[in-house]
């Protein structure tokens, strides 16, 4: 490594000289790296402020936070905030809702995305394929606010499209935003509607990577379309499928705040089935103003969420190094 500076001189008398030379080399190397290092500087600083500073700020979960005292000045209270949080029924409810609803989204979302990919893979007509792809992406482009508008147009009490349809069938109207029992299904539909098209592209790309000779061989052997799908496409898709699912499971402790806040219109009557960790933290912080509860729930999410990400990534890494995040 040091070929440029061979050790011509040695012996105790020259130690100081060597040290100076090493230092000089260090400076020189740093200077050589300087342009590339300086490129990263703005990004590094932004991450420091908006990602790393809050990471250290997580200690406020163990404090009685007061604005006037700041993060460091506030009084330490140990686990008091956590005792408070976990002795309430809220902790169980938001944990269950987050895990249960996300599990539903992952399961049905994956099935829908794969089905859409299979469908697109069958369409030979280029134009039709293109149009379908644009349509499938479309819900992904809309903000959660707009999705909330659309759902409201469908479900509102008076003159909502669904209630009008119920009336046409001679059924009584439902006050959707007051009845929590329907909401896991509603949220599931909305979630799949918004993201299945987007996710299907990933599976479609994997399917297009399958060697066409497999199909030809299967056809010659008299395999039906259905057999081609179940015996060739799905097995060959399995690695990508497992990977994507594992990565989603890694994030199962984080809910999509936009979905839960806008689509339910933050209706208190629905919290029983729709309150998740993210909405709870937000409400405690901004509506209730209980920073202790908010920060302890946030800490709980950050730590458990981190462990789940690590675990799922570890499994992904075992299966295929390239698809692991780290």
């Amino acid at each position, binding site marked *: 490594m040091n070929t440029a500076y061979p050790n011509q001189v040695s012996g105790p008398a020259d130690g100081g000289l060597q040290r100076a030379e090493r230092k000089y080399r260090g400076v020189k190397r740093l200077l050589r790296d300087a342009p*590339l290092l300086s*490129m*990263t500087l703005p*990004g*590094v600083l*932004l*991450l420091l402020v*908006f990602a790393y*500073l*809050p*990471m*250290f*700020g*997580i200690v*406020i979960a163990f404090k009685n936070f007061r604005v006037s005292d*700041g993060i460091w000045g506030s009084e330490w209270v140990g686990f008091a905030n956590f005792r408070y949080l976990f002795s309430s029924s809220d902790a169980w409810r938001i944990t269950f809702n987050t895990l249960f609803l996300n599990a539903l989204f992952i399961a049905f979302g994956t099935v829908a995305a794969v089905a*859409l990919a299979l*469908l697109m893979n069958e369409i*030979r007509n*280029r134009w039709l*394929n*293109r149009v*379908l*792809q*644009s*349509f499938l*992406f479309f*819900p992904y*482009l809309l*903000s959660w*606010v707009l999705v909330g*508008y*659309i759902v409201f*147009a*469908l479900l*509102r009490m008076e*003159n909502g*499209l669904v209630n009008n349809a119920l009336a046409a069938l001679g059924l009584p109207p439902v006050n959707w935003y007051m009845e929590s029992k329907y909401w896991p299904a509603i949220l599931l539909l909305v979630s799949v*509607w918004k993201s299945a098209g987007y996710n299907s*592209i990933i599976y479609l*790309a*994997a399917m297009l990577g399958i060697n*066409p000779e497999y*199909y030809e061989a299967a*056809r010659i052997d008299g395999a039906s379309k259905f057999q081609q799908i179940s015996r060739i496409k799905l097995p060959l898709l399995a690695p*990508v499928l497992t990977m994507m699912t594992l990565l989603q499971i890694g994030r199962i402790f984080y809910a999509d705040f936009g979905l839960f806040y806008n689509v339910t*219109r933050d209706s208190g009557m629905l919290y029983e089935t729709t309150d998740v960790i993210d909405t709870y933290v937000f409400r405690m*912080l*901004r509506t209730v103003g209980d*920073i202790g509860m*908010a*920060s302890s729930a*946030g800490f709980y999410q*950050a730590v458990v969420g981190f462990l789940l*990400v*690590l675990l799922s*990534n570890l499994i992904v890494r075992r299966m295929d190094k390239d*698809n692991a*995040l*780290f």
Partner: protein
Amino acid sequence: MHLTPSERTAELTPSQPRRAQVGKLFLLLAVAAIGAICVLPLVIVISASLSSERSLVEWGYSLLPREFSIAAYAYLWHQPDQLAASYGITTFVTVTGTLGGLLLSSLLAYPLARRDFRWRRPLSFYVFFTMLFNGGLVPTYIVVSQVLHLKDTVWALILPYLIVPWFVLLLRTFFAMLPVEIIESAQMDGFGEYRLFFRIVLPLSTPVLATVALFASLNYWNDWFLALLYIDDRRLLPLQYLLVTIIQNIEAINMSANTVTTAAPAESVRMATAVLAIGPIVFVYSFLQKYFVQGLTVGAIKG
């Protein structure tokens, strides 16, 4: 790049034309149904924005306007204060955030893609660790509002999304695939790192830059969360958050209060505002769609 199956299986075996026909019909029906499910909800919103207020109150929403009217748009045209301000804010935030984010993210990603950069590993870890662990809402909120004092400034809407690690990952993956020879020969010609980056690396990377630009602009244009957290000043309300406030309260539109409000067309105005908020994103998407698909697959399956 559109992902269309190649023509490899285009020919149907002649022995089963009947079944193939049925299959084709079934396929077409499925496509039509799925396409409808994707866009019909939006058709309802557009239809409502073009309906007369009376018909909305009377019959509710429908797929086609029962009583066609452009009153809602006319109303918005004559009451432009809040809407124009919000459009301005959202446009400024989207343009600044997208361009700034694109520049700073690629400046960050490029050294991480260079194999001869000695700080590559520690810096990569520094960047991507933030994808695995974050402090969560409460500390972030306190940092932005009480340490940086960004509340009620337009920077609170821009800075938090400027560096998105996932975009950095996309960019780095792409930069790393550029042939090393190009970089080496430019260095031989005496190009400094910055000139190399701006004159050679960036121009060669338009596909990934377009992808990230589209994702980033979508991120900014559709954002309402940062405003929900940090903005109380009405003059700084972005479009999406304006929509959040007016779904409860039509007064938000005529806050200028210099007009005697004669029964504002509340329902249809809400929907017209929603339509105006979608317009630009659909426009941009139609231009960048091909990159969108490409970028997605690059991001999903690395390498």
